[in-house]
């Protein structure tokens, strides 16, 4: 009981699209339980989620296809509940239980 209280979790869904799913076990939707706070005790935000995904969910070794210099790589859009993260505060957005975070790779073919 106290252990659960010490490490509260929250349930979210994380989606990958536009080819990014290939980096995450070829699975487009992941139901995750992530720590509610980062190791400094601050509410988990998108920046935390991105590094958390790299550490725990990504099996593919090509992390530079997802993250460059500790930030999401250019050419990937981040959507918070189907809205561009610019509308929500980008990396600083504090994730809420039940949120859906979508990472989608920009396409250029035709």
């Amino acid at each position, binding site marked *: 009981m106290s252990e659960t209280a010490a490490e509260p979790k929250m349930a979210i869904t994380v989606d990958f699209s536009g080819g990014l799913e290939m980096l995450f076990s070829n699975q487009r939707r992941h139901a995750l339980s992530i720590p509610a706070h980062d190791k400094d005790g601050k509410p988990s935000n998108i920046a935390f989620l991105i590094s958390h995904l790299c550490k725990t969910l990504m099996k593919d070794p090509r992390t*530079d296809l997802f993250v460059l210099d500790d930030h999401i790589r250019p050419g990937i859009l981040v959507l918070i509940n189907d809205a*561009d993260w610019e509308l929500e505060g980008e990396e600083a957005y504090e994730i809420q239980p039940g949120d859906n975070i*979508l990472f989608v790779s920009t396409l250029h073919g035709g």
Partner: protein
Amino acid sequence: MTADTGAASAAPMKSNDRRLTYEEFERYSRQMIVPGMGKHGQLRLINSRILIIGAGGLGCPAAQYIAGAGVGTIGIVDGDTVEISNLHRQVGHATSRLGWKKVDSLIAHLKDINPLPNYIPHPFHLDPQNAADIITQYDLVMDCTDNPATRYLISDVCVLLRKPLVSAASVQKSGQLIVLNCPPAPQGLVDKKYPPCYRCCFKKPPPPSSMVSCGEAGIMGPVVGMMGVAQAGEAIKIIASALHLPPSSTNDLTAPIPERNLQQPTLLIYTYDLESAVGPYSFRALRMAGRRKNCFACGENSTLTLEGIKTGNPNYVTFCSPPTTDHAL
């Protein structure tokens, strides 16, 4: 070229109350009776000029419906020739036209669907030197290209010439569609909720190592086909309902934009799955931000000019440093 092709960006409203010819009426009757279209919408299509950049997997189906709907002047830009590996998805070409310039092959097909429009071939690739001279001849641009450098170039010129842009892309089992710069607002104006340009939505291109073309990564025909047809649908509604123009009482492009035209910008993404039927996540409509204050192209302190583009500023090739890609797609 028609007489009014030279009239640059004049709004094409002049003959929107003439009578339809008997053939026009016969051809377009089934779309004219759709509520909201009517004779007025049809005449707007007939009097409009649409530029389709790219005659490949997006451009072929898009052009079929643009031609069918009776858009009066249809320009097509592409420097490639028809190859056999194109034909599974580029359904406006044909085995009997292998080796033809794509623009000529597609126009031959379109003329047989509908001989009434004025078709203008631009049988070369769009580049910083020719982009403005071509785009200025049209009322609306459809980006059906296959590489990021051309996508940024098209958007930049559309911002400067104030042309609405219907942009789509597709690779493997994914597609994307977005209406940009519609209605167009003067560069630098950021005080209202103006619509975004391509750079507002996609600030930086991906690093070359992460980019894939249809030639390298493959493409399912119906996926790119859906996006091309959807592009035609968006272009037709913009022209038929004059969503890109100030209220019809005025041709002044700096007049305030009607509220109804300032919509939430939406990026449509389509995900095709070979292992399961169409479902709740096949289509998603994503809410995008509007014009960005600090956008390189349309933002407050933008230094982007047509002169600059022509003389190599910005340099689209170094900006995107594209991989050596099979361009013929």
